[in-house]
């Protein structure tokens, strides 16, 4: 690669970077999309659900051609007790039409397909190229370097940092450091193979349609964590996430938590007979609003996980939406020929008015709930188990007495005031819906 100059360099061909590159390439800009994996997706891990928005805005009717595993029609939320589970589920074929309820995907298939759309629009995709340095001039980043020597340098008018939660670009540019242990969870996932018929009968699904099961409560030994089982065509994506700062308190290995989740009596039967095909791990931004770094700084626009925009359970859509806005910002700069740092601040303004910031503001208490919310991981699950066991066992004790006992459990384990406060505020930060 020579020392060419592009309108924009996008580092990272994940959902954020590819969205930015696609948006700019469609607008006629010269864009380099740089990826460290030998193909996009080779280094990437996620749970498995991609949402219709904003992908559809970039690729109308994508569901006719994208590598979709299953269209989600069944959303189940399960609160795990130690040996029990309390679930709420919503199933609706409407959600399966045009992937309204999202779809499962595997990154090694989805990311290359998505990046190909950017290439077809005119972006230059460069794979197997880990960016290791940024090139600075007059207080702004003007290029990137991958390895040593001039031939590994690239220059552009604007740089998009789409290189994920450990962002090399933002760290090298001094825009943020590595994330703090309170601000990231470690996610572990196994891809477990099962025949598609088995998946359909076990999860009560029609061919091609899928379920997502999100588990809360007693997943990570009383600490903040969650689990998931998502259905793919002929595999399940099964995983857990636990806040790194809580893992440090637990002093246990993250895969012990995964193994406990997989052998939980509510989860294990779903996986029975399956063969593990891959074992993966990745960090997940969980810091919420307060962890978002400067979005437009020193000629660098931060998008997706690099900007810590992931907000459980939505990450890919936040990444794509921010990528589109960064792309639009740079398109505006190109139109006016003004790539000044001030002009690039448009990105921050667009972001502040967007779905992303509305959601982050709504869930501004999320991080607090995660770090201090033991009641969500222990007290509530325990209370639910105790109450449900008592109520569902018909043993000659009248329901009036049992309901009184249930009220006592709530009072003793959590307290009415806290329940009310949680219902009013914190629970909406903790739930996936």
């Amino acid at each position, binding site marked *: 690669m020579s020392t060419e100059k592009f309108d924009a360099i996008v580092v990272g061909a994940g959902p954020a970077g590819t969205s930015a590159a696609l948006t700019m390439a469609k607008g006629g800009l010269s864009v380099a999309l740089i990826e*460290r*994996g*030998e193909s996009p*997706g*080779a*280094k*990437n*891990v*996620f749970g498995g659900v991609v949402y219709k928005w904003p992908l559809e805005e970039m690729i109308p009717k994508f569901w006719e051609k994208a590598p979709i595993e299953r269209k989600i029609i069944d959303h189940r939320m399960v609160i795990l007790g130690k040996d029990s589970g309390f679930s709420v589920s919503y199933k609706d074929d409407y959600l399966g039409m045009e992937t309204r309820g999202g779809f499962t995907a*595997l*990154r*090694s298939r989805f*990311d290359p397909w998505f990046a190909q759309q950017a290439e077809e629009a005119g972006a230059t995709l460069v*794979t*197997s*190229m*880990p960016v*290791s340095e940024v090139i600075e001039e007059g207080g702004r980043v003007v290029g990137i370097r991958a*390895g040593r020597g001039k031939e590994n340098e690239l220059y552009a008018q604007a740089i998009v940092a789409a290189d994920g*939660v*450990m962002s*090399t670009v933002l760290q090298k540019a001094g825009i943020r450091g*590595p*994330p*703090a*242990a309170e601000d*990231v969870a*470690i996610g*572990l996932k196994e*891809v477990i193979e099962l025949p598609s018929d088995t998946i359909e009968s076990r999860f009560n699904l029609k061919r091609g349609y899928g379920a997502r099961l999100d588990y809360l409560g007693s997943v990570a030994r009383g600490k903040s964590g969650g689990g998931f089982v998502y259905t793919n065509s002929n*595999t399940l994506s099964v995983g857990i996430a636990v806040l*790194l700062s809580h*893992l*440090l308190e637990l*002093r*246990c*290995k*993250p*895969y012990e938590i995964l193994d406990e989740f997989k052998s939980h009596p509510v989860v294990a039967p779903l996986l029975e007979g399956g063969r*593990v*095909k*891959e*074992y*993966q*791990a*990745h*960090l997940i931004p969980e810091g919420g609003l307060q962890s978002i770094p400067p979005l437009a700084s020193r000629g660098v626009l931060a998008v997706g996980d690099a900007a810590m925009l992931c907000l459980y359970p939505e990450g890919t859509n936040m990444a794509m939406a921010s990528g589109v806005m960064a792309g639009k910002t740079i398109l505006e700069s190109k139109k006016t020929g003004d790539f000044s740092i001030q002009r690039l601040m448009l990105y921050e303004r667009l972001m502040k008015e967007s779905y992303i910031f509305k959601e982050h503001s709504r869930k501004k208490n999320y991080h607090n709930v995660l770090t201090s919310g033991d009641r969500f991981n222990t007290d509530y699950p325990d209370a639910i188990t105790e109450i449900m066991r008592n109520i569902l066992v018909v043993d000659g004790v009248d329901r009036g007495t049992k309901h009184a006992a249930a009220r006592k459990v709530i009072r003793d384990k959590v307290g009415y005031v806290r329940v009310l406060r949680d219902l009013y505020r914190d629970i909406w930060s903790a739930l996936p819906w």
Partner: protein
Amino acid sequence: MVNPPSRKIDERLYVNRYNVHSENHLHVDQSKCQECRDKPCTFSCPVDDYVWDPELKRLTVFYEGCVECGACVVVCPYHKIALDYPPAGRGVNFRFG
């Protein structure tokens, strides 16, 4: 180096696809490891890449199974771990992801 002892984690990792690079991409400055109380790298890594040898008083780093997640960098209280991504296509290559 002599063959590393087989570890339990290897059973878990054999399903993954790696294109192992000849050089270790995990750079650990071990100057603080002895005084590091919990040695969080030794339990936080999802593939057990860090093993403390209490006799030699040093870490052995098994970079071959690394899935490049970054957890070790985040948890080291002395910021002594640097993860330099392996070059061109090396390291882990997820077949599913």
